């Protein structure tokens, strides 16, 4: 299930956000929605999960009849 994890620091009120398990275009849409309300983040990066999934190559198996 797609989820967005927000973390608020009680001392400073600063916000961190991590989007997880959301397919590519939808992830960008969610990030856009958040920045529409919050403004541009000071830092934004794709996490390791992004690169792992992006490097997966489709495998094709030959069927023997």
């Amino acid at each position, binding site marked *: 299930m797609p989820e967005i994890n927000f973390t*608020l620091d009680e001392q400073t*009120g600063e916000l961190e956000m991590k*989007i997880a398990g959301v397919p590519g275009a939808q992830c960008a849409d969610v990030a856009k929605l958040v920045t529409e309300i919050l403004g541009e983040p000071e830092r934004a990066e794709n996490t390791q999960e992004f690169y792992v999934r992006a490097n997966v190559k489709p495998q094709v198996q030959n069927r023997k009849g």
Partner: protein
Amino acid sequence: MSKYMTFTEIAFKDRALLVAALEEIGCIEIQQGNALPLGCYYSEQTPQTADVIVPRNTIGNAYGDIGFQRNEAGALTPIIDDLDRARVMGGRFIPQLRLAYHERVVQTVAARLRGTVHRTVEGGVIKLKVRY
């Protein structure tokens, strides 16, 4: 796909959410408009304007109005006397406002995604998980 973002700037992009957050932390008589004159304690201070104003002496701000003025990026940034910043809510005015604002942002995001919010608090950190 996964993405990580941090928001550290003290700026509030959504005026309605900002006003709601101000009310939540106890601000009253909040004024809204465009380039409203900002009241100050010292007469020699440079006149300033703001789009959202918390009037002086309404939340312990003895040295002047607390204002929020749009910056170039379109977000509202606080204008607050240094002495008030240190005194109002025991020096916690800005952190409390940011917390209230950010919690409303999360609720807004969840509502737009038709999702649910699960809230936990662990050692000075509030965790809000939106599932949709």
